[in-house]
């Protein structure tokens, strides 16, 4: 692991009415590290993700990207600063083509969105790059279909393709394999493993499937009722009695 954290949250909390969806979470993540965030439904995993990528503003606490305080930045500013996010509920541009979905992400990274009088079709750099990410995710054959015409598994892949196309420093995956068939999931997991090969990248992954967790995690963070209850080496964390209680079944009454 590298020494200084690439992203960290400090006493991060958000309250909805009287309910603390995320409560006082302090933790730091390092380049080259893949952290899986686990916890039962309603534990605050996705809410914590939304705080980090900017879709929600915290009630209290701060978020740092490297040394920079990004707590008050908008989602687009954070995206440009290097935080990339794939969504759990598929969140695409439904009527645009698969290719166009990815091309838009490439174009955002290249900061070409303001160009008014260039022809998009003539910007071959953007085009080639977008095709490259589509090939990586096995979507090249359906590049021209509207995103909404894809089956669910392919839409999940498209989410990942768009995240790759953003070329961020921080990769945030929210249940990337949810609802995917058994043969489809390995493609995504392979991709994540390949992202990990570059030691400058920090990967955060919300995931339920234990086999995925075991295969990929360098570290596990457990959230429960909005609080961070365990953090550490996968084997150790999975062994903790508390974690077994809340995560592996006996805590069914805790589900919000």
């Amino acid at each position, binding site marked *: 692991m590298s020494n200084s954290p690439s992203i960290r949250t400090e006493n991060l909390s958000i309250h909805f009415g009287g309910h603390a969806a995320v409560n006082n979470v302090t933790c730091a993540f390092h380049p080259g590290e893949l952290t899986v965030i686990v916890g039962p439904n309603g534990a605050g995993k996705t809410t914590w993700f939304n705080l980090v*990528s900017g*879709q929600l503003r915290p009630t209290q606490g701060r978020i740092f990207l490297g040394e920079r305080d990004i707590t008050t930045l*908008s*989602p*687009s*500013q954070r*995206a*440009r600063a290097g935080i990339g*996010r794939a*969504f759990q509920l598929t*969140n*695409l*541009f*439904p*009527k*645009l*083509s698969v*290719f*166009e979905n990815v*091309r*838009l*992400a490439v*174009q*955002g*990274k290249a*900061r*070409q*969105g*303001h*160009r*008014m*009088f*260039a*022809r*998009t*079709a003539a*910007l071959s750099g*953007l*085009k080639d790059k977008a*095709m490259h990410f589509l090939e990586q995710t096995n979507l*090249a*054959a*359906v*590049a*021209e*279909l*509207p995103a909404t015409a894809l089956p669910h598994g392919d839409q999940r892949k498209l989410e990942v393709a*768009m995240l790759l196309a*953003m070329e961020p420093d921080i990769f945030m995956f929210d249940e990337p394999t949810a609802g995917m068939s058994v043969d489809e999931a390995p493609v995504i997991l392979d991709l994540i493993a390949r992202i990990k090969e570059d030691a400058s990248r920090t990967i955060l992954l919300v995931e339920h499937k234990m086999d995925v967790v075991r295969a990929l995690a360098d570290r596990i963070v457990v959230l429960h009722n909005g609080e961070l209850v365990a953090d550490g080496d996968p084997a150790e964390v999975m062994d903790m009695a508390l974690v077994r209680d809340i995560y592996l079944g006996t805590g069914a009454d805790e589900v919000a």
Partner: protein
Amino acid sequence: MSMARNSSALASKSLRGSAISATWPGRLVVYGAVALIGLALALAPFLFPDVRSQEVAARICVFIVLVASYDLLIGYTGIVSFAHTMFFGLGAYGTAIALKTMGPGFEAILLGGGLGVVAALVLALLIGLLSLRVKAIFFAMVTLSAASVMMVLASQLSDFTGGEDGITYSIPRLFSPAFELLSDAEGKAVRLFGVPLNGKIALYYFVFISALVLFLAMMRIVASPLGSVLKAIRENELRAEAIGYRVVFYRTTIFCIAAGIAACAGILRAVWLKYTGPDVVLSFDIMIDILLMVVIGGMGTMLGAVIGVVLMTLAQYYLKDLMALGAEATGSLPLVPDLLYPERWLLWLGLGFILLVYFFPSGIVGTLLGKGGQK
């Protein structure tokens, strides 16, 4: 849309040619119709030399620009604004007031029109920055009230605007029918296809070429990276933000661009008509016409503006005549002549609109090109 555009570039890599070929008859019809309209407008002074046809052709040119610029907002970006006639009016009134006070010169058009465009840009920037963050419905309300204020101002500041009567003025001599572009030995205007080459022709081509340039610029904008971001914002604002696009910035930018282009259309209208008043540039009737034209042509299709404007304008000008002929021809039948009585033309226009929306749910061009679903 991007599907179709990317198709050629990706054809070699794609296995899905069928999705494109399924719409080719539609494309043929659309491109053919637009080419015909373009040709007819380009040759209008020679094809249809009478005064009324000239008025129709010039109105079509100006409205294509106005409607296409509105489509940048409602069709491409998903912004609902009712202030488009306000910007149109700013361009027209700026030109009109300058021509009235400075006299009929090009410098008046340039200065007055320029000030009108600048005023439109500034106003659009203010409205955009203040209210494009709020929900679409509130934004629509803000634009509606701004447009109402502008109408009140136009009628109240009658020293400048002529109030409800509007302003009548002269335009540069180059554009007057008495001016001869080319004169023959006897000092008369040279005729081409029997049409004298006088200032009226120059004026028409001033309108036509300006409109063409503005329309082509808009075609370019929607095919640019900026255009693709606009579509992304229309489709999924939150995701556009999440991949790094500042949505408010893009919305404000296109709102200003559309306002500036509408103001340019206002300049053309003012110069052509030699008259500017609330009824011809500011009224909500015009706003409704713009909306209908966009819907008829198809939202989010630049070419739809061309088709929508032509159909609607021809109906507005000629449906009555057509019905009078029909009523005469069917004079011996019961009921039919009453139905075709010319004063009932709005009934038929409305009926036609309902049928169009029923058979072309995404507008004529939108449906023929197979773009999008029902709105």
